[in-house]
């Protein structure tokens, strides 16, 4: 075999590992649970992301996901439910960050301290875990069939809880996030709302860890909302777009991942990244044309 032919074959293998749509129908049935989980995660991630952007919590999301990973790894080692471990890890992290870091600068240093500690713990637990390596890797980078039907119901309950709580505190949380001084003056319990949101964020991260893995949580909790705020400032359009983007990334990622043998996350992250790039370009064109378009000559 010539060198070029060999090269072509390697490239071909490499390509079929990423996209191969033979037996697609049969595969689709196998991942039904994962598709439901991905769609629901899209809704949760898209909504939570709006407040993550408003409250400047991107780094906190990353920190919480590492602790969530540590919790999941501990659960794996102790033969407990991995989802419960992930939830416990991220809720503890979220509460610690919420309590110690009410100001952005404090918060970032708290996260910077917690994050490597969590990651280190997780690595330790995985090293001690005697089981299959695929389980270990899946916690960090996600796995397409991670969600079986017993786990799916817990997943759905947590997701419903997060969405319901967000709906109840939507307005005061928005007020406290974008205009904290006046919100406090108007009697909004800004600190309690901040803590409550950290709890919800912790739960959302634990869900995302199940689908895309701890390292790539940001692609569903931040990128969609960041993309949405590039093209709109409306309090209705931004959350709707953010949810649409997140669901498209998560579900689309799984549908594409079925046709290959690499993990789901590269597909999810690539779709969500592409959406962001497009939104940025659209937003830039809009700003250049004058997003700040005014009805009449400004009087102020």
């Amino acid at each position, binding site marked *: 075999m010539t060198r070029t032919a060999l090269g072509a074959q390697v490239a071909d293998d490499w390509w079929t590992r990423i996209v191969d749509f033979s037996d697609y129908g049969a595969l689709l049935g196998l991942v039904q649970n994962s598709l439901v989980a991905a769609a629901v995660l899209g809704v949760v991630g898209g909504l939570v992301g709006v407040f993550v952007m408003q409250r400047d919590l991107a780094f906190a999301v990353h920190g919480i996901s590492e602790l969530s990973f540590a919790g999941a790894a501990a659960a794996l080692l102790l033969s407990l439910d991995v989802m419960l471990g992930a939830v416990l890890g991220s809720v503890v992290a979220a509460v610690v960050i919420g309590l110690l870091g009410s100001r952005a600068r404090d918060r970032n240093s708290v996260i910077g301290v917690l994050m490597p500690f969590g990651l280190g713990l997780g690595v330790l637990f995985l090293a001690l875990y005697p089981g299959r390596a695929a389980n270990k890797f899946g916690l960090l980078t996600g796995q397409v069939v991670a969600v079986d039907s017993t786990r799916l119901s817990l997943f759905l309950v947590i997701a419903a809880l997060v969405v319901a709580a967000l709906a109840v505190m939507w307005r*005061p949380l928005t007020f406290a996030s974008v205009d904290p001084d006046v919100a406090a003056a108007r009697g909004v319990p800004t600190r309690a709302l901040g803590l409550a949101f950290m709890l919800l964020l912790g739960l959302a991260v634990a869900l995302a860890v199940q689908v895309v893995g701890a390292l790539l949580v940001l692609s569903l909790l931040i990128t969609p909302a960041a993309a949405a705020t590039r093209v709109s400032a409306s309090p209705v359009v931004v959350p709707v777009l953010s949810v649409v983007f997140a669901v498209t990334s998560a579900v689309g990622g799984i549908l594409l991942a079925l046709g290959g043998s690499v993990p789901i996350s590269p597909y999810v992250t690539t779709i969500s990244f592409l959406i962001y790039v497009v939104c940025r370009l659209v937003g830039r064109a809009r700003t250049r044309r004058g997003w700040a378009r005014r009805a009449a000559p400004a009087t102020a």
Partner: protein
Amino acid sequence: MSGSPLELTGARLAYGERVVWSDLDLTLRPGEFLTVLGPNGSGKTSLLRAVLGLAPLDGGRLTILGRPPRRGSRAVGYIPQQRLVDPSTPVRARDLVRLGLDGDRWGLGRRSTRARVDALLAAVGASAYADVPLGMLSGGEQQRVRIAQALGTEPALLLCDEPLLSLDLRHQHEVTALIDAMRRERGTAVVFVTHEINPVLPYTDRVLYLAPAGHAVGAPDEVLTSGRLTALYGTPVDVLRSHGRVVIVGGDDEHHHVEEADA
């Protein structure tokens, strides 16, 4: 329900052992413009916090329309300092005004407030940029929107916490003139905390000067004199007047006012 928009009787504030002010008596008339002056740490912001019901006094009485202060009272409007808003924050001018109306309520909120928000924005001359993201507005425009927000609950008392800070001179005058017009139109009493006396001097009915060695309440001409301020600071202070402007030399505030005089 009637009564003064703000009444203080023997009010006292202390940080631990240190008494910041005490025996403060003050009764505001509806529509009155009170300018609060004083160096940093003289308890200006704490006074506002007490009126907002966010921090209690250490003694004396404080009432708003005859009632004790309460967190989130709709009788009190609040205009903070202009803050830097990230241009990508998904909040338009009209959203900020709306939050002032119903942002303290739980749930998603379906009741339409659009007509009310439009009316408020029109009243402050901000209709042209109602749909522009807040972060893309100039400092003066942002403060106009904040005035609309603060007036949303039709308050009897408007608290302004250094709303002119970081605005240029032209916008300082525009914003103060607008606040003055609103209080005349609506009979809202104004408590205006500021470092810059001159932009508010033409509108000020009374001055509350909080200083290290006491406080003084009265018309600007009575309070802003070398004798009164020297007594209040306990160190020599000169009050100079030129072309209708006041420059205070000495005291802890020297820097600000000299700078203002140069502008």
